[in-house]
């Protein structure tokens, strides 16, 4: 259990956070300036809170009442920065060895795990962004951390490089048992990696819970283009003729491009509210391959021509749809009404999903 309860006042900004995190991957989610990175720095000890306490298990790293403030180098917390921050004057090998702990993980096994053995004699300046992040992860791992902090480790990478790094972040927790706190402002990243999400705004926690639960909450601060829902489905079958995977979901089958045929592990997909069409009956002559049955749970109007309709799907998950008020009036949509949610399979970005 990681307990973070801190207050920090700065001119124009106040951070006031109190969370308890488990041992999985926790995502700190929010717009830039929400205080996510500051929170990481407080946990690492790079910044000081005004008051509060930070504990990992039974050990206090910081406790203003007990006057405990462990120095950064004694905290044993791995930190992977957005721009990796490898030491430029040292080779990759020396960077990896910089914080190496006796009795920690073996150098060669980490190098092999991250696939960086060919890079050992290179200098950081000659590495690509993805390579740099892998070295940064390895460097932090070798320092035998009891917690890993990652500050938007994927933000500066393109899609291909992101896909290259995902598995390593997932393995930190699965293979090495190290809890991870990950800062992110991409829903897809959160959907792919996190077990727990803490949503921050203006230095405060505004929501907390599983990605599906938290991302689908009504929230007037997000524009319709940022409004997304996360759905969970189990890959049930693969159609090799068309290259489509069917995900089974209590509300109906979800069609997904690409092969994700691994029946046991559920996958999360991110659906943009602007990609969802609502229908009163199940349409027949239509190209959308995914039709999910549910009931309208909430209509969010804000005076603009657009409204967000929240649909509670069969099975309990929520799906948000952005509609014009005109469409809502003409269909006579209202809370409690049964509807079909139509999704274009092509609108779901399968690149974020772990392929089998």
């Amino acid at each position, binding site marked *: 259990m990681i307990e973070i309860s801190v207050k920090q006042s700065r001119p124009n900004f106040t951070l006031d956070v109190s969370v308890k995190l488990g041992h999985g991957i926790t995502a700190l989610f929010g717009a830039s300036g929400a205080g996510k990175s500051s929170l990481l720095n407080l946990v690492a000890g790079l910044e000081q809170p005004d008051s509060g306490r930070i504990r990992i298990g039974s050990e206090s790293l910081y406790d203003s009442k007990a006057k405990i403030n462990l120095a950064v180098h004694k905290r044993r*917390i*791995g930190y992977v920065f957005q721009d990796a*921050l490898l030491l430029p004057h040292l080779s990759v090998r020396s960077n990896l060895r910089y914080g190496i702990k006796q009795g920690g993980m073996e150098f060669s096994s980490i190098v092999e795990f991250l696939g960086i053995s060919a890079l050992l004699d290179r200098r950081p300046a000659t590495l690509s962004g993805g390579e740099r992040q892998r070295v940064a992860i390895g460097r932090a791992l070798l320092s035998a951390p009891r917690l890993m902090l990652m500050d938007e480790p994927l933000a500066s990478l393109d899609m291909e490089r992101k896909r290259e790094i995902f598995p390593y972040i997932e393995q930190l927790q699965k293979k090495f048992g190290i809890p991870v706190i990950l800062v992110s402002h991409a829903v897809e990243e959160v959907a792919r990696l996190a077990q727990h999400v803490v949503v921050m705004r203006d230095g405060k926690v505004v929501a907390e819970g599983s990605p599906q639960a938290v991302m689908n909450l009504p929230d007037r601060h997000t524009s319709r283009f940022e409004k997304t829902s996360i759905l969970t489905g189990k890959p049930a079958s693969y159609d090799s003729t068309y290259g489509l995977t069917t995900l089974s979901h209590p509300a109906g089958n979800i069609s997904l491009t690409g092969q994700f045929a691994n029946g046991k592990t559920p996958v999360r997909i991110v659906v943009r509210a602007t990609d969802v069409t609502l229908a009163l009956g199940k349409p027949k002559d239509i190209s959308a391959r995914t039709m999910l049955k549910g009931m309208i749970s909430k209509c969010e109007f804000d005076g603009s021509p657009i409204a967000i309709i929240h649909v509670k799907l069969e099975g309990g998950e929520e799906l948000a749809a952005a509609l014009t008020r005109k469409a809502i009036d003409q269909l006579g949509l209202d809370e409690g009404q049964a509807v079909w949610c139509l999704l274009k399979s092509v609108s779901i970005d399968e690149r974020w999903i772990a392929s089998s």
Partner: protein
Amino acid sequence: MSLSPEEWTTIFLSLRVALLATLICLPAGLALAWLLARKNFWGKSALNSLIHLPLVLPPVVTGYLLLVAFGRRGVIGAFLEQTFGLVFAFRWTGAALAAALMALPLMVRAIRLSIESIDQRLEGAAATLGASPLRVFATVTLPLAAPGLLVGTILTYVKALGEFGATITFVSNIPGQTQTLSLSIYSLLQTPDGDAAALRLILLSIALALAALLASELCVKRLTQRVTGTA
């Protein structure tokens, strides 16, 4: 162009004075530069001004103040002589002290700029890997500041080689003891037929200064490449 024994004495003395001045300046400059670059404390501006004072004061004034403080009857001078038997006044060590003080602002400036240009988050990253502040300084700050350190050292050495005003005021102009190249040139120019001899030393000074500058240029370039890993 063969040099006379007196000329050799002068050259060796100058090199020795400059070397000692640099050795005094380097640790002091590094400590002060780090303090100014990384710490906030009461009186920081005052300290910064004090370090830069020799740059703006007339060198004669600096020399005089040194004489007042470090002369045998000066507060510090008397103390050092009684406690350690250390005498600066009218000795070559005094010449080195004067040169060190005059060159200190250059040393501090060069190192400070170089420390300030280091991304402090690198030091933070090293700390998260378990490095103590001392280890961070030795393995991150110092190597990354190396180009500035080198520039400071060479500037100090060259400045010390040519120091004149403070030196002559503090330790006078004693051949074989405190008469460095500059003082020697000055003396020769004061003697009726000294022009030719002075010219030899002048050319020598120019050669020494140029060589030092060229060497520093080359070293800094290669060191910077090594430090940033762009070689």
